[in-house]
């Protein structure tokens, strides 16, 4: 039987009377997987994460973390779950050691030795007050706490926010180590290179709706850009291809962007007898952009005068 790190069923969140932030989300994250959540600004990613962490309540639906229902008001639910939000909200007047002191008292599996090692490795001065720390330093502190609690599940909302490339990569490497030893990683990010490097499963969310959830390898294997020249222009059949994301024209060359069913579509296009045909790989970023555009999320504007 499959064990789920995160299991979400029919989850919705409506702010006020009308503003639908999440609309009937169903999502299942297997234990031990590295799961990336993608979506444009305002898609509902942070709202979903805050609901999972018990910071805000869902309007309807259920969710469970490591098999524990999030509607249970007990704090024990979060004792082995690490959370790094996009913006750090530590007590400004506290010293770093006070924040760590609180965490040490409240997390049962707090690893003091690991915390000390991380503080030293990431140059975080414990004698500084939180309000004296830069944004990046606060994010380092949040990651150090997340890694020191020896988590079974890590939830990250824009984990690289405020970090330089070297530090970010180092933290990501440490999270991958955690994943290798069995911890589940669930993160939302706009950095698709990072996501491509880390995630084994992805989900795309837009306007509060889950568009799909699938294995990243499978998604990439089924997605390609096919460039072709047809003797009599673009055949009508192309528009009916399953998983078609976009057709772009450059002179006589048509670029057919496929988000799914690559093998099947390739055979169909071959059957249309193109004069020329080539297959190109497509990056996750392009794939995401084409998917968003297909869903109507487009900000193409004419050249500014």
């Amino acid at each position, binding site marked *: 039987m499959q064990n789920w790190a995160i299991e979400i069923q029919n989850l919705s969140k409506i702010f006020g009377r009308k503003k639908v932030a999440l609309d009937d989300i169903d999502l299942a994250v297997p234990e031990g997987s590295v799961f990336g959540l993608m979506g444009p600004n305002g898609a509902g990613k942070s709202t979903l994460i805050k609901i999972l962490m018990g910071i805000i309540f869902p309007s309807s639906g259920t969710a469970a973390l490591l098999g524990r229902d999030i509607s249970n008001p007990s704090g024990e*639910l979060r004792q082995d779950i690490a959370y790094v939000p996009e913006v750090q909200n530590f007590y400004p007047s506290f010293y770093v050691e006070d924040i760590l002191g609180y965490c040490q008292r409240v997390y049962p599996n707090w690893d003091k030795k690991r915390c000390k090692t991380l503080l030293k490795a990431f140059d975080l001065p414990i004698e500084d007050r939180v309000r004296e720390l830069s944004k990046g330093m606060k994010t380092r502190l949040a990651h150090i706490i997340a890694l020191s609690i020896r988590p079974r599940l890590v939830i990250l909302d824009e984990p690289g926010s405020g970090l330089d490339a070297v530090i970010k990569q180092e933290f990501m490497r440490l999270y991958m180590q955690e994943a290798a030893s069995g911890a589940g990683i669930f993160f939302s990010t706009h950095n698709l290179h990072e996501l491509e490097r880390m995630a084994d499963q992805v989900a795309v969310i837009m306007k509060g709706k889950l568009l799909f959830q699938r294995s990243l390898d499978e998604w990439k294997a089924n997605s390609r850009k096919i460039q072709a020249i047809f003797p009599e222009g673009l055949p009508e059949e192309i528009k009916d291809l399953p998983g078609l994301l976009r057709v772009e024209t450059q002179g006589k060359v048509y670029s057919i962007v496929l988000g799914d069913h690559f093998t099947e579509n390739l055979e169909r296009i071959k059957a249309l007898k193109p004069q020329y045909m080539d297959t190109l790989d497509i990056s996750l970023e392009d794939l995401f952009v084409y998917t968003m555009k297909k869903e109507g999320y487009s900000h193409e504007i004419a050249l500014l005068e």
Partner: protein
Amino acid sequence: MKLLYWNKALAWKEWRQNSLRFWGLFIIMSLTPVFSAIFTLALGALYPEAWFNGGAYHANTWSEGIALMVNSGDNWIMRTLVPILIMVLAVLIVAEERSNNSLEFLLATPVSRREVLSTKFLLGAGVITAIMVFEFLFMLGLNICLPAKYSIGAAGEWFLLTTSVYLAIFALALLAASITGNFRTALFAAIIFIYFPRILAEILGELFAAFDLYPGMFLIPYRETLAFWANHLTLPYYLDHYCYGQLNVWAVLLIILAAIIFYRLAIRFFEHNQQERNGQALMLANSAQILKVGTSILLAALSAIILAGILQIKGWPILLFFVLVYFLVSALFAFVYRYGDTT
């Protein structure tokens, strides 16, 4: 999974966060019963010939301030300033968490909402009680050792009533803060909550008079009855009208019971409140609707009272005017909600 009311880690965090405030409260609350008494005793010992309050120093001069306080409640610090400070403290310890968004950090750690609010209350109430116990024991000790102008019974009665009122004010302000957002809103709500019965009685009294709803000759007794109940439901009234020997022990028990009810309600509301940055004005119902109806009634009532006073008329024309203003203000709210920027 157990749901607890006390969390040691949270208590440690609260103490780190608020210890300066607690010490400040201790100093202010100790001004009369401790510091002033010690100061007078020291002055009397050093300068026995000096004059105090227009008289020569006597062995019991040190206890004059305490005697006034415990016999008639006559001490503006303990009667007026400390209740305000306690209210501000209760509001601060919750609203501050929202305004700097640290509640988000806290709620993502393995603690329940119940533990968060309950630990805040228990620590704050514990500090207030500890300060009051310390002061009572100090007054008791000095009374036993030195000649004093107050009796142990007076100190005990004052201690019981004042502590219970302070705890109830602390719990009520915490309740206000648990269902509101930022500091200003929470403080406003706390003031309204604490003085609500008296404000309501005043408005109702004036309004009923303007509507001519009192049976003619019974105006004064009706208003007095209304004021009597309103006063007894307003916590600071007990401090304002304290007098040694007139304390009803049931009043103390009821005030403590009220404090417990406010505390339980605060937890209940906090457990169900959304923790968005600014909180919500009232999460049990549509806050916009409550604001619309509440403000419309209040403005209509005030307009009716003022008009009745200016024109020296009462009865149905004022009632009609009240209804008219209510609908006008409601319509204005509806217009603003529909076409205005309500974000």
